[in-house]
């Protein structure tokens, strides 16, 4: 099994930072806030590998840093330090072995468009509110240089159909769509250019249960059919159990435990993991 993404020592500190930030924060100190300088350590020393075709879960509660990791990997923020490397990724062979955070903004944009895609919890974060559902999906293609309207539309329709989104509504603006439908558009958009890596930040949290189930089924189906490598962030153990082969458990910005999903759920080693597992209703 090949590694497609390797993250090393990823750290993000909000604020001016000081030499003691890392030693004064984390699960043993029960805080993210550095007493000495008041900076917030959103995540620190996060290292892991993502294998081709796997779903890696990140389990954590608010303040765990799980969303920060996603935002960093999607180049929405610059890490304070740390590296990330891509390997064996189709369409991005030029990036092989290079620290992604050292790339220039044009190169990062190329990766964002073609290789790494994000699906957010709030679909409106991933969608352009002033543009139709079809337009949102088409944007990715247009940026990649597609210039034939009929071909673009054919692909947009096929993607939306795959997401079980009603084609008759493809001209509608996102705000007139239900949460579940917005999410489907977001996923269609994320998949438009056939990325190799999909980052999902709690994509079903907040949706009605029946809608949640359908979107999760969709994600499972896509994973099977497209052999996507995915990082799936959630606070919900059942969802992680359903989707992920391996899980990273995060607390207050640090990884506290990492292992096979069934092992984490049945034989949690770290105190915090045991607490999470026993807290499920």
């Amino acid at each position, binding site marked *: 099994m090949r590694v497609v993404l390797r993250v090393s020592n990823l750290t993000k500190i909000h604020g001016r930072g000081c030499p003691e930030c890392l030693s004064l924060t984390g699960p043993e100190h029960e805080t993210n806030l550095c007493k000495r300088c008041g900076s917030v350590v959103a995540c620190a020393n996060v290292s892991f590998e993502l294998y081709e075709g796997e779903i890696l879960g990140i389990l954590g509660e608010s303040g765990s840093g799980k969303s920060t990791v996603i935002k960093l990997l999607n180049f929405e923020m610059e890490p304070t330090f740390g590296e990330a490397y891509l390997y064996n990724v189709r369409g991005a062979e030029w990036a092989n072995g290079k620290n992604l955070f050292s790339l220039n903004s044009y190169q990062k944009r190329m990766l964002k468009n073609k290789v790494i895609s994000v699906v957010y919890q709030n679909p409106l974060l991933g969608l352009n509110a002033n543009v139709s559902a079809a337009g949102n999906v088409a*944007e990715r293609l*247009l*940026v990649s240089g597609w*210039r*034939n*309207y009929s071909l*673009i539309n054919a692909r947009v329709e096929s993607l939306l159909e795959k997401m079980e989104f009603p084609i008759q509504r493809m*001209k509608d603006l996102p705000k007139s769509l239900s949460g579940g439908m917005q999410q489907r558009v977001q996923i269609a958009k994320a998949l438009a250019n056939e990325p190799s890596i999909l980052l999902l930040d709690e994509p079903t949290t907040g949706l009605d249960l029946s809608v949640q189930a359908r979107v999760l089924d969709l994600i499972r189906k896509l994973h099977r059919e497209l052999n996507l490598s995915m990082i799936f962030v959630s606070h919900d153990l059942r969802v992680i159990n359903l989707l992920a082969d391996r899980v990273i458990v995060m607390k207050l910005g640090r990884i506290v435990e990492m292992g096979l999903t069934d092992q984490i759920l049945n034989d949690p080693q770290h105190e915090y993991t045991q607490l999470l597992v026993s807290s499920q209703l």
Partner: protein
Amino acid sequence: MKLNYNFAFLDETTKREIRRTILKAIAIPGYQVPFASRELPIAKGWGTGGLQITLSIIGPDDVLKVIDQGCDYSVNAVNIRKFIKAMTGVETTTDTTKATIIQTRHRIPEEPLRQDQILVLQVPYPEPLRLVEPSEEETRRMHAEMDYGKMYLYLYEDILRYGEITIGARYPVLVNKRYIMDPTPIPRWDVPKLNMADNLFLFGAGREKKIYAVPPYTTVEPLEFEDFKFRVEDFSGKACYKCGATDTFLDEIVEDGTGRRLYACSDTSYCEKRMEAIRHAGSSKSF
């Protein structure tokens, strides 16, 4: 009392700086070069950008033509022409083929220009991406990184909603396959004239403080899709009621009294030439 003005009103240092800006613009076709717009006896928003370009490049041997919406005799064209003539003493003309510098607002003359002619266009809004992005910082980044997806998205949405691209004037073009440019509010009819022309085009936005250029023999391609191509206005079945032309850009006129719709050449000097020719032909002189 006669005040002593420098030739062409602007001082030489200013002219030199504006020329430097113009050279930069020519070196990077379609790229908006910022410049510090000067005080003129004409208010900003009335053609000061184009005027500053003309004043910086004009010499005593130049022949000047000024038009506004194709017409030499509209108020603004007349004022600008009088001002430049007063400041330089150059010869002025309405004949496109005789001019060496033509300053224009919102139209390109019908007669193709030569290598020795310069067309100076007045620009109200230099930024073509403003249509899809309000932030100046962001549009500059988009130009720098050639990140034009949003612009094509706008066209896509037009086709999705209306079945065609609905942009009329200010049709966005890709210059030298690199920068998206606003050709100013010229009609679609005139856009193809920019592509691989023999002459130099200079664009001046005085209020917005930008100068850009399209050098001769530069590709200027309107944004389009392979299956939804750029089209010019359709005047089939219509002709100029004065000279009978069926191959010029026509203005629609509603006749006083009758309310009849008439069409007339927008390029008035070209229309007059054609009418002259018809008169001569009528008096059995060949044209």
